[in-house]
């Protein structure tokens, strides 16, 4: 996410909708990606992203520049996504039945077209992420998708840096075992 200037934030907090739209353009890519990856549903990702930006707009005047603006937005996005995931977790568990479909897709030989390969990759990634709990998934997404440091992740999630380390370790051990079990082919 690109840096957002203090002037823009102050203008938006003063009620300037044009300034807020600029903030939206600079941060919507990340917000939507994180929300989508945490929840795992395109339909819900749109609703939750909308909720995230409405919360940002409502609370802009309370933002006092004590933390980074980027960190603040990440925090709102992650909290909304995790809360939604937890509320709907029963529905999401049922989606685990696509394992068989994934295996079929993964069984395509080396002559598959690039579109199918891309789809396999995407579905394998979704499968991997679906095996993690929301806390582990969030850490992996913030680390692998956005390239944030342990310190930044700890600040966003308001947890200890060792907790970040521990969650990443557990998530990666699980991913490692999944690949070794052959649930996901690793010729990605």
């Amino acid at each position, binding site marked *: 996410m690109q840096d957002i200037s203090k002037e823009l934030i102050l203008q938006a907090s003063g009620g300037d909708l044009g300034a807020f739209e600029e903030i939206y353009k600079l941060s919507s*890519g990340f917000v939507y990606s994180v929300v989508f990856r945490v929840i795992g549903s395109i339909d819900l990702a749109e609703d939750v992203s909308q909720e995230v930006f409405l919360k940002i707009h409502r609370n802009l005047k309370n933002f006092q520049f004590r933390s980074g603006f980027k960190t603040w937005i990440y925090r709102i996005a992650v909290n909304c996504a995790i809360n939604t995931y937890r509320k709907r977790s029963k529905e999401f568990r049922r989606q685990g039945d696509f394992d068989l479909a994934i295996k079929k897709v993964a069984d395509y030989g080396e002559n598959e077209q690039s579109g199918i390969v*891309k789809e396999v990759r995407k579905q394998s990634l979704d499968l991997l992420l679906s095996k993690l709990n929301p806390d582990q998934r969030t850490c*992996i997404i913030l680390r692998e*998708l956005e390239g944030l440091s342990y310190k930044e992740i700890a600040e966003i999630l308001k947890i200890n840096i060792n907790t970040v*380390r521990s969650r990443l*370790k557990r998530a990666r051990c699980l991913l490692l075992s999944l690949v070794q079990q052959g649930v996901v082919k*690793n010729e*990605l």
Partner: protein
Amino acid sequence: MNCKRAKELIITDYIDAEMDLTLKKELKAHLTACVGCREFEEKVLGAVREPFKHFQQVEPPADLWPKIKTAILAEKEKSSKVSLEKLLLRGISDIWFIFRKPAYAFVSIMAAVLIVMSLMKSRVSNENKEIRDCIVTQMEFVSYLGAEELKGLYSEFMDFGTAIEEYFL
């Protein structure tokens, strides 16, 4: 450094470039000497890093901003209506406040007067009762004194027991 510690570092700090130089040197030295840990490093990179190489940001749908904008404008309109209602309520409560003090004062005074009167009434009636009781007691005593059968008792009471007293009295 033992293999357990080395593997922990490989799966976290090492692949995320979060290690300080001293620790990194130590790990590298261990990896040079330990085949098992080197193989583990390759597995981790393949299973944990590789799938996310093609991890891309997912772009939001084009109609997301229009929906957000509509919702923001709707909230602004709602909050301006709410503040108008608040102003009206405040006006009414201000008017009430102006007249409240004299009305409260009048009621308080009346209540005080009533309380004082009822206290005084009960005190007066208590005093009257005491006076009445006293009078009744006195009357009983007097009638008691006038009774014939008590004459003897009276003389007994009046017996001082000496001849001189009897002579003079």
